[in-house]
């Protein structure tokens, strides 16, 4: 357990030795958030992680704009089309393009063999007109960040799947589902954690003891079997949206314990603090004491633990969908895409069904972990 920020926020608190310039800007007078920021920005990995996470969420908010194609549009001609390398320079000038594709069918196995068609060049551009869509659900638009200049041309930067759908566009659209599962799940587990952890820490005594034992028991149940059991409850015909909320609820129900522990620990530490005692002696009502004085002082810790639990949620959704008990097609999530890569014999022939999705998941989770660790360290500006 780390020491509480507020006890150490006295004028005698030692400034970190390496911070001469920041000591000049008076560490004593800096707010808690300023201190956090000073500590956070020194962690280069966390900064990079934060930027990547922001980019991911930006893509998740506007997938229609970032994806060159409709993720559901199939094309019988381009089934299992291989990734087309992107070229930027043509005849010494900036002129992005990809080569077209041609296939020959093996007369015996009927397997397609793709070859690059160096005769046909498909010009590629930024902010090109493509299939129309509605941004955020109500703004009609037809511009895409990048794509073929003539919108009908084949353009598969990461290849196509078994029905000729563009893998890259599917990964981009899947990010919306996969990334928000984490956010919604964390929101639910935050509410549960705040209430239960708050009760535990504020009331203390027997109630606290009972809640702590309950949390220990929940934590000792292996996650995956219970998740599988709960997810297997969802009947096959359930509407997509309901499945989505059910899955996030399952994830939240198994992960609020971590949040509750953080909240309880903070409450217990703060309860005895001088400024809380002062406020209480001043006659501040309990509710106001909690919301105005206690929660703001450990908000940073909560944010850090939220960041740390999002990757868990996302990986769990991916795992459940991969096993076929989470989200199901036609929804696109990373887990659903990985499930499509389950047939090893297929994947060996068409490896682009596996690697790009895996990369998307791993890069996101890595970045989120770096960001979360940086935030956790920064939440305690005086900790070593």
């Amino acid at each position: 357990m780390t020491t509480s920020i507020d006890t150490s926020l006295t004028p005698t608190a030692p400034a970190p030795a390496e911070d001469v310039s920041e000591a000049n800007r008076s560490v004593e007078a800096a707010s808690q958030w300023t201190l956090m920021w000073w500590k956070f920005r020194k962690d280069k990995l966390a900064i990079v992680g934060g930027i990547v996470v922001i980019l991911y969420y930006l893509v998740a908010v506007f997938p229609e704009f970032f994806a060159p194609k409709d993720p559901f549009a199939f094309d019988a001609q381009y089934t299992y089309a291989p990734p087309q390398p992107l070229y930027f320079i043509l005849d010494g000038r900036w002129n992005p393009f990809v080569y077209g594709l041609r296939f020959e069918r093996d007369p015996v196995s009927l397997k397609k063999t793709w070859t690059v068609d160096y005769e046909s060049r498909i010009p590629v551009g930024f902010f090109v007109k493509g299939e129309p869509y509605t941004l955020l659900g109500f703004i009609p638009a037809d511009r895409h960040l990048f794509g073929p200049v003539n919108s009908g041309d084949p353009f598969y930067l990461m290849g196509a799947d078994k029905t000729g759908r563009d893998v890259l566009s599917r990964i981009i659209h899947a990010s919306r589902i996969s990334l928000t599962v984490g956010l919604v799940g964390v929101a639910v587990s935050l509410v549960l954690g705040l209430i239960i952890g708050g009760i535990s820490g504020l009331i203390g005594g027997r109630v606290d003891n009972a809640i702590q034992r309950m949390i220990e028991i929940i934590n000792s149940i292996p996650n995956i079997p219970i998740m599988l059991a709960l997810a297997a409850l969802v009947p096959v015909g359930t509407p997509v949206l309901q499945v989505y909320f059910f899955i996030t609820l399952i994830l939240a129900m198994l992960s609020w314990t971590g949040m509750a522990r953080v909240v309880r620990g903070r409450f217990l530490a703060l309860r005895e603090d001088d400024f809380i005692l002062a406020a209480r002696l001043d006659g501040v009502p309990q509710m106001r004491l909690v919301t105005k004085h206690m929660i703001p002082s450990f908000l940073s810790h909560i944010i850090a633990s939220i960041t740390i639990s999002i990757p868990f949620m996302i990986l769990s959704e991916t795992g459940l969908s991969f096993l076929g008990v989470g989200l199901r097609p036609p929804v696109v999530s990373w887990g659903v895409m990985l499930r499509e890569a389950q047939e090893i014999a297929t994947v060996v022939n068409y490896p682009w069904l596996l690697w790009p999705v895996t990369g998307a998941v791993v890069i996101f989770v890595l970045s989120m972990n770096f960001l979360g660790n940086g935030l956790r360290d920064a939440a305690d500006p005086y900790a070593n």
Partner: protein
Amino acid sequence: MWKYILYRAGYAMVSVLVISMIAFAVIQLPPGDYITDMVNRTRQTSGGIDPEAEQRLREAYGFDQPMHIQYIRWISNIVFRGEFGYSFFLKRDAGEIIAERMPMTMAMVLGSFMLTWTIALPLGIYAAVRKHSIFDYGATFIGFFGLAVPSFVLAIVLLYFTYSNFGRATIGLFSPEFVDAPWSVAKFINLMQHLWVPALLVAITGIGALTQTMRANLLDELNKPYVNTARSKGLAETHLLWKYPVRHALNPFVSTIGWLLPALISGDVIISIVLNLPTAGSLLYASLLQQDLYVAAGFILVLSTLTVIGTFISDLLLAWLDPRIRLT
């Protein structure tokens, strides 16, 4: 000490009881039961079953009783008679099915547990001693990577490579000639030669986390004045390191068993589904999908009991290592 052991044992039993209720309730939640399922199937193939017969079947299996009665019947059969019920799908005794799978599951979990510790411990110690070296950063990065790559993706990648190199997508626990052979030393050696691959897949996440835990624990210790004192008295560096700080840093490390064990069991379940290993996971998954009540509930109960026992052992180990715990 005995008082402490008794207290922890009683606590472990209460935990198992609560877990058994949760497990049974969760499995019971879906609407309908195996009989509904069966009736639907017979309706597709033949004329179906008349409602009276359906009702009789339900009574015979006890499905007409309220849930708490069913639970009490189930748990007392397990506790007093060691009967786990009947597998409707496999038409066999559920206890037998579970017992068949458990030895291999235990082998997997123990194997991955040992791998986690034997890899994470030295890695964490070395990273702490060579703080901010290339090795330290490498260990940190591998740790983060282990946390970021879901184990089932690692399993697919592994299958991918075995298939593209050897032309088959199976990672069994035995060579073909040993699968049906009776147990022998050769078969055991063969198992050990195969087991480490899936065990390592399961262990990777834990290795990442534990390396970081050990590194942080040891760094806390290394900064303490007694280390400087010992050093200034001329104690050899390796002797100094192993005699005091490592032993201190091990205490919080032991308490990680409490979460490592559930995590490893979860990992084993998912890996055994993907690789189709003859451990608990693949059968649990099948029984959940088929609403095979007693097999699924039995598996969850047995697996959870394993983690509770593991936590109990780690508590005792901690109390033995650290007198402060057993005396308060």
